């Protein structure tokens, strides 16, 4: 097993005294697909929000790529190479698909505001380069036909794909996906699973993924972490987790 890209140590989070996460610790190995599962309200989304600094944990430590994340903030996380999609789509809904994807490249932007204003320096070359990167990612996710659509007008499943494209376009090292297949049928889930595997294999992107469909999780992930009421109740290979009696009673049992 390769070394950890992300390690989470003793992370706790509460909202006005209500505990959302209690002393969570686990490692995400470099290059793996790690699935985060657990019933609704278990704290999965909150944990992703702690990782990229949308929420500030009460306690605990995060280490990313060997460096301690002392004060994780969303923008810092993005700059370090942590990409993210949200459970409820968080797209820029009045922009086109292309503009949404281009916005995902900001962490790579070097041209300054003044260079853009006067169209000098790096402005033109960077715009051209960004456009190529965005077109590549749009083609990779097979949404070329919708490039110029306003995302707010797209059906939900396609919006999820656009959000994936926006997170992916800057080639993050770690990709946090919050229920990327929610509300999809079997075929759609297969397709998204294929994209996720391709990203993981071809781009060597480490992925932490929240997903409810146990079949999909077992097929896709190298590592499964189970949360229940904000506590970690299982952590291991898909097989180990499936055989863990606590997990079966707490979660798997209720699904099947």
């Amino acid at each position, binding site marked *: 097993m390769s070394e950890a890209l992300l390690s989470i140590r003793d992370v706790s989070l509460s909202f006005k005294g209500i505990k959302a996460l209690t002393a969570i610790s686990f490692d995400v190995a470099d290059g793996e697909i790690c699935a985060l599962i657990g019933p609704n309200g278990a704290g999965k989304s909150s944990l992703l929000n702690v990782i*990229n600094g*949308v929420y500030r944990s009460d306690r605990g430590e995060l280490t990313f790529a060997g460096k301690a994340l002392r004060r994780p*903030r*969303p*923008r810092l*996380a*993005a*700059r370090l190479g942590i990409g*993210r999609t*949200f459970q409820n789509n*968080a*797209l*820029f*809904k*009045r*922009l*086109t698909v292309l*503009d*949404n994807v*281009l*916005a*995902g*490249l*900001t*962490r790579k*932007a070097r*041209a300054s*505001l003044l260079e*853009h*204003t*006067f*169209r000098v320096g790096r*402005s033109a070359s*960077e*715009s051209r380069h*960004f456009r190529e990167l965005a077109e590549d990612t749009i083609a990779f996710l097979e949404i070329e*036909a*919708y490039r*110029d*659509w*306003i995302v707010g*007008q*797209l*059906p939900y*499943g*396609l919006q999820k*794909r656009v959000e994936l494209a*926006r*997170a992916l376009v*800057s080639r993050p090292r770690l990709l946090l996906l919050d229920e990327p297949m929610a509300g999809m*049928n079997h*075929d*759609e889930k297969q*397709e998204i699973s294929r994209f996720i595997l391709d990203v993981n294999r071809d781009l060597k992107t480490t992925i932490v993924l929240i997903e409810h469909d146990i079949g999909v999780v077992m097929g896709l992930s190298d590592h499964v972490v189970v949360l229940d009421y904000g506590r970690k109740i299982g952590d291991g290979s898909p097989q180990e987790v499936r055989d863990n009696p606590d997990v079966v009673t707490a979660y798997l049992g209720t699904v099947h």
Partner: protein
Amino acid sequence: MTALAAPAPPETVESPEVLRRWRVGPLAIAGLVLAFYALGFVVHDYWFNAILIPFLIMALAGLGLNLLTGYAGQASLGTGAFMSVGAFATYNVLLRLPDLPLPVSLVIGGLFGALAGVIFGLPSLRIKGFYLTASTLAAQFFLPWLFNQYGWFSNYTTSGSISAPKLVFLGADLSTPLGRYLLTLTSVVILTWLAWNLVTSQVGRNWMAIRDMDTAAAVAGIPIAFNKLASFAISSFIIAIAGALWAFAYLGTVDARSFDLDRSFTVLFIIIIGGMGSIAGAFIGSAFVILVPILISNVSANLFAGAIDAGQSENLQKILFGALIVYFLIKEPNGLYALLLRARRRLALWPLKS
């Protein structure tokens, strides 16, 4: 067929953001600009102050506000205040540093406006929506009051309204109606070009991203605080130059009273009617706000020959504007601009489809 292959791309595209991709060619733009320059040499002097100059200056102010509100999503009622900063700052530069070329004085006036914009934009880092609007209102009440209160700003002129210094550039006297028009037009052309560069770049995209969903923008790596303050700075820079032009190229006096809350509302109406988040919208809205009152008073004077007095036609105008604003806010946030684009598309398809 995969299940994800949802609806085919649309035959009719309703949204103006999509329509905007039918870009107007650079030739058409150049033609329009040249036509405006040519216009200056053919029209009667009356036209400059009655229509052309106020149209251009209010469009410029609308452009500035549209960057802030339409693109970056930060509402403001401080437009009049930022115009007054530009007017008073430029006045003092012209007065105290008379050797500086006129364009430099205007730019310095704009920079003071940008500074004021950043200061009154600071609350946007903490608050949104209604409360932010209220804080820009503070600028609107504070700044013109400040310029009125302290004589230094108006060089201790007793009347409170001071005549503008002579406008000269490269030895040419720009105080004539034509000179003031050319000064205004050139300023508008340059600033519109810069604004266009900005909104079509990654910066403009970042502003719209913050407008649509700020958390997601931060997670995508967009610096929120910097971009909010930058939108205040650049918007106020443009608005301040509009204010300086209003004082020097239009009114011929510097008077804090001409930059009151009414002025802020008029500029806001311009972008609501013309179209939020589009550069053309500021011009369309300004043309509307300047032309309709003239049209109404002409119609009421000629058609009803005195049956409608001036007060009534003014009321008529207020009712019309109020109704239009309500209509646009509810039905078409992208304003007349979107209506025009849609009409154009219908025309293009006309023999084939209705």
